[in-house]
């Protein structure tokens, strides 16, 4: 038997086995296929509701400059070029 750790909107955050969970957590006999965090547990049923995949933010100008500096430093180090 499994115990569900639910978020406030009933999304499954994690699952463990019966003996490791507080009594107030809901128990189920089986788990849905795949990533359990794609499901909510509502009225004793699993509801498929995947979290939208976060889109990585575009690097800011600051980040791009930092990345370029790091890349240049790496190439210089590998080629013994003094900057």
């Amino acid at each position, binding site marked *: 038997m499994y115990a569900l750790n639910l978020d406030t909107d009933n999304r499954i955050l994690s699952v463990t086995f019966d003996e490791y969970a*507080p009594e107030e957590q809901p128990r189920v006999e089986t788990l849905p296929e795949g990533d359990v965090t794609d499901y909510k547990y509502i009225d004793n049923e699993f509801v498929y509701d995947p979290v939208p995949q976060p889109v990585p933010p575009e690097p800011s100008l*600051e980040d791009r400059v*930092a990345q370029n500096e790091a890349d240049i430093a790496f190439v210089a180090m590998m080629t013994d070029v003094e900057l």
Partner: protein
Amino acid sequence: MTERNYWVLCDDNCRFPGMTREQIYDAIAEATGMTPTPVDEAFITMIKEQNANHNIKFWHGTEAQFNALEETDSDTVYVIGTNKVKSVDALEAAVSELQEEVQPVERGGTGATSAAQARTNLGLHGAETRTLLWTNASPSSAFAAQTLTFDLSEYDAVEIIYKEADGYSGIGSITRRHTINGVSNPMFANTNRCFTRSVTVSTNGVTFAGAIYYTSYGGSSTATENSFFVPMKIYGIREV
């Protein structure tokens, strides 16, 4: 032949029947089941046991002598190794004294009078117990920010085993020991990206922040990646 009667006269001329030596032997034999030898060498070899009302004998010798006996008799009490039969009170006192005595390690004791010294003597200095508190029943799932509730008040630390992140080679399983101090404790791992997840352990549970990675080297922008630093097992650690 008629049996003679013998009489014993007292100072006041009162008389009462006396017994011959043979009559005394017969009386002893009747009482003990044994015919005694002459008086000067006589031993009462059997005495009456009061419970079952039968005759029993005593045997005393060394353990080697006892082991050499070809057979033993259920009506004989064997006393081995000492010529002193102690009372039950004396035996209990001796046992109590032995229990109070510190036994050396080589005899199964600790050789110590304190718990700390006992641990040292037994080579347990630094030993600890591990109690499994939680295990991930869906290890292939992501692990978002959340709190797992436990009573950690009796533990000295918490050890968490994180699984190898799917899709990222070279990291492997990570085991991390956390102090129970309520302080946020960030973990980092580098593959082609720098990942981090903060964990806070307090006496009432473990709080995981979401796992994130930095989108560029040296930058500050981050994105969520909850498939990283997924806890597999949580142990409570107690120093012995």
